[in-house]
């Protein structure tokens, strides 16, 4: 299983096409947390996030044999999850993402976070939503193309945004 965890995603797709369950499970393990983060970045609740992750994997199954570039399956999954999330958010009547102000952490949240998690968690809660979403996705993939697909942003802006958000996180940690 260790070897599968390090395998190229394109190889995992090609093996899954031959009904290799271990390869499929390795894909699921590698990307599900990222897909959950994509859905969460669109402000969906737990049930809807679970729904988005499930239907994204079902969409991959229906296109497994016709995916043109299996190597790019990570970006494909992120794009699909984001599209599903935005559709579901619209159906739920949630406002467009750019209209939502950064969520202010309540005193209760802050105390709970300090006590139960750690200083980094508290600082993350204070960050604006765009930075929090970016840092979460960056924590799950180092491929900028997947980050861009996950958050619907140009690949070229991932690096500068990462630097800006890490600086903001440092300021929160210091404050």
């Amino acid at each position, binding site marked *: 299983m260790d070897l599968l965890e390090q395998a190229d995603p394109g190889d995992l797709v090609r093996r899954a096409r031959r*009904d290799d369950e271990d390869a*499929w499970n390795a894909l*699921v393990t590698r990307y*599900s947390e990222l897909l959950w983060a994509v859905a969460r970045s669109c402000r969906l609740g737990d049930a809807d996030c679970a*729904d988005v992750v499930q239907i994204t994997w079902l969409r991959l*199954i229906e296109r497994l044999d*016709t995916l043109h570039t299996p190597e790019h399956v990570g970006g494909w999954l992120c794009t699909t999850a984001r599209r599903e999330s935005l559709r579901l958010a619209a159906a739920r009547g949630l406002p467009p993402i750019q209209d939502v102000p950064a969520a202010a952490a309540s005193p209760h949240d802050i105390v709970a976070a300090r006590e139960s998690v750690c200083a*980094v968690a508290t600082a993350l809660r204070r960050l604006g939503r765009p930075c929090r979403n970016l840092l979460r996705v960056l*924590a799950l993939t180092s491929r900028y193309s997947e980050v861009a697909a996950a958050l619907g942003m140009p690949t070229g802006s991932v690096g500068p945004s990462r630097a800006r958000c890490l600086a903001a996180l440092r300021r929160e940690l210091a404050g």
Partner: protein
Amino acid sequence: MNDEALTRAAATAFADIDPLPGGVLDAARDALRHRLPGAVLAEPGDPSVLPCGVRGGDGQRVAFSGGGASVELSVRGAELTGRVRPVPASPVTLRRATGPSARQAADDAGRFAFCDLPPGPASIVFAGPDGATVATSWFRV
């Protein structure tokens, strides 16, 4: 803390604040059993109108096409009605991502209906005009 260490610390914090529920992984692994090798995919004409599982409204309609056949579906609450053209030679199957499938013969006009459906992803499978298996893209009930 350098950038890499800070990113790792953020990863740990996120995993603690908002962990991926175990059931989500189980459902994702289970998706492999829904693979239908050789089946033709019937895709929606306009993916933006795919039923989204919001209950209690006026329902949503969507049309799929593929394999020389077309399917019109209407999802209203827990009820799914539809019509396959040309009329399939064998019963229509309603697949559910979770739970058992259901089968029903379409009437002379290719119409069918499934009721009392629990929420979740669904797909219609039927025999196309040339005998090939046709499966609609997954949609939400």
